[in-house]
């Protein structure tokens, strides 16, 4: 089999994913999305459009919400990454995951991982967002099932629960 690029074009790239240091041997321009899903076997991050439009592949990289389909692997060097697999702790759901479940914010579930990470990012920036801020904060993530309103409910509910705790 003739690879598109010679093997020596591959590089060592190291970063932390969900608290675990990982090291991969990959083409520098490989999509971070593919690295996560295929090399690191974390398929919770989904591909929707492959061009940064739908937000399904959203992850947190050094606390910034990014579309992993647009990130070359090399750009992740030395970074700290959080994916959907990193949110629940010891079987205990993250408050946003719990709220998504209760409010009907996940229907088919394919946009859900990216949507939840967008919501995590929003609440890190604005712990008590208004409805308008929630709309704005999730505007980079497309959902075709819910019509979004129950997602907004879930984000609002997660904030209330956080405060209650």
């Amino acid at each position: 089999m003739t690879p598109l690029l010679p093997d020596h074009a591959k590089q060592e790239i190291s970063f932390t994913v969900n608290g675990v240091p990982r090291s991969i041997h990959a083409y520098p321009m490989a999509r971070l999305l593919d690295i996560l899903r295929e090399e690191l076997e974390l398929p919770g991050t989904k591909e929707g459009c492959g061009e940064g439009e739908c937000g399904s592949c959203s992850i947190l990289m050094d606390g910034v919400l990014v579309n992993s389909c647009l990130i070359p692997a090399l750009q992740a060097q030395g970074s700290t990454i959080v994916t959907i697999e990193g949110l629940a702790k010891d079987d205990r759901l993250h408050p946003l995951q719990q709220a998504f479940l209760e409010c009907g914010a996940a229907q088919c579930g394919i946009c859900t991982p990216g949507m939840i990470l967008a919501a995590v990012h929003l609440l890190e920036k604005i712990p008590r967002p208004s409805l308008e801020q929630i709309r704005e904060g999730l505007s980079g993530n497309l959902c075709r099932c819910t019509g979004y309103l129950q997602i907004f409910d879930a984000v609002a509910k997660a904030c209330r629960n956080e405060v209650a705790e």
Partner: protein
Amino acid sequence: MARSDYGIVGTSVPRKEGRDKVTGTARYVDDIRMPKMLYGATVRSKVPRGKIKGIFFSPDIDWDEYIIATAEDIPGKNCIALILDDQPCLADGVINHPEEPVVLLAHPDKHQLAKAVEAVVVETDPLPAIYSMEESERKKEIIWGTDNIFKTFLIEKGAVDQVWGQADFIVEGEYFTGAQEHLYIENNGMIAVFDPIAGITVWGSLQCPFYVHKALMVLCGLTEDKVRVVQTETGGAFGGKEEYPSMIAGHAAILAMKAGRPVKIVYDRLEDMVATTKRHPSRTRHRTALSRDGRILGGEIDLTIDGGAYATLSSVVLSRATIHSGGPYFWPSIRIRSKAVATNAPPHGAFRGFGAPQSLFAIERHMDRIAKAVGLSPVELRRRNFLQPGQTTTTEQVIREPINLSALLDKSLAHAGYEEKKKNFSLENKTSHVKRGMGIAAFLHGAGFTGSGERYLDSVVGLEGTADGKVRILVSSTEFGQGTNTVLCQIAAETLGIPYECVTIAQPDTTTVPNSGPTVASRTAMVIGNLVRSAAIGLKQTLQLDGILDQRYTPEKFANACRNYVEEKGVLRALARYTAPEGIYWDDVKYKGEAYAAYAWAVYVAEVSVDLTTYAAKVEDFIALQEIGKVMHPVLAKGQIIGGVAQAIGLALYEKVLWQDGRMLNGQMTNYIIPASCDLPSIRVIFEEIGNPHGAYGAKGIGELPMDGPAPAIVNAVVDALGVPFDSIPLLPEDILEAMVSHSIAKTVVVPAESAR
């Protein structure tokens, strides 16, 4: 109607597969990899119509690395078996649309495939192609059958030819709806594995496991037991994964059989958008006779849908469009003629609403046009013409349930603050740069297959007691976000009087579940739910007749009885088969009788603003009030309505498929725009519950209903805001601007009855 005694039905229990979805552990087809798996890709025709002269493989590629398949490699019959077997799986000699699959390629490295697909050239002698319903009707080129027509229907009620002479008003209108892309966020995909002894197995994103099963038997020339279809978690469908998955499964299977290795085909977004099905574009012409006081005397409806290049499901979509075209009104006489025609575009297919959103857009726009012509308000005109219990629909089905559409209308208007807003807007619009308007739509949606359809489907459902004392549901009904898993488990738990947590549902797999039909037509809660209930009663009776379960029991006793039975006798299983409700009569030839076992009813109200700087229309507030029988799960039901309204806002105001020579030009999320989080108004959802004697615990259908009403309500509101008639969707800013510029060409034809004769 069975009563909900345990309060499981009607309660918002946790979604069955919800935890997997919010933690990212749910496994969709593209998340699955198999040892030695190859990746498949499709070479398409690129020309809309022609004859294949040859296939050229560029020498730049080392083709020895690839598995290559063409029509010659198909072991069975080269078609996608559905209703008519006219659509080939791989084009053989003839091309009928620009996305026709011709060659399949498979390779171990998926990144190599794009280049390889480009390196295959299908050489063709082009033939003249047609791209519009009008061209198809002219029959200058015959591209399908003898007349370009897939199917026609004629519904006749009363003596419509006699009403024109008695009419005080005759109102005509012509209405158009465009194609719409489903845009489920998970693209289509399949994995196929072939074993010479076991046969072919496919895993994939799909709605109807037994449709794929049937198609693969025909295509691969295999017997029933040598084909296995398994549904993986499915990331949205909306009808878009009803028929096309059979095509992709077929392609993966052909490659897997030739390669002797597993083959995965997952479309990228562009391929999914341009090559798979979309909503049928439509044109509806209305001519209606009315009395002086605005009562419908009769009318003629002429409905045409564009089916694309092959018959696929167009006849069935047309059927539902035809039956719904009269709306929720009483027609003393009517003649409805409809047809589905062929064009050289990829076949249009199932999409939530299945023809009803098209014909209901037309009737609800037309009602507003009539109101204007006869000098009544849109509210009063509808009130005078609503179907009443005891009256008959256009197919002469008697309305037996105590539906009161006027009361639904009143309630909906009160929630919307309709009268007050309308008054304020008419004052404010005189001076404001932002024009506001209010629009309504009243409509109905038949649940389940049309006419005798459920009889033909002959669905079977199974329920199993397990060794751990739980119950497992066996159905081919699929979950793709709408809540199948949850609602069916609720019904079983309620019927058995055991906790919801003690009921599970098997992954749809054609080797282990019975054929409960396709997951379409808003049939699952009503039809399959009822069968789950019957099977649950059967399971309970088996245990009681065996003497190991008392008439009255606790959940613990039930679990023990299950365990004991399985331990002693091996299998505890109850099956239930569909039986048609009594007194239901349908004539497939005359298209008369009980078209549907139940109708859901709704009145939606939209408030819209149009900013005359941008000409963009925006929905500011939305009331969705409906009677859907029993609300099985309030959170899921509300989610279905809001999601459907959002998708229909897209249909009305955002989603425009741009065509060039039969091909979609804007097959990306960057240029085909669906509503995002900032685009949606508050959507207030109100349920009325009359119930339904034919559905489990009174359920009717819900999934498709919310797709029907928003577009006409919104466009009626835009018309109210601007005073300009709009009769075509989608209505983008450029369309509004254009119509306002050419407003002087009024389309409304109101002829005094004298001169109309």
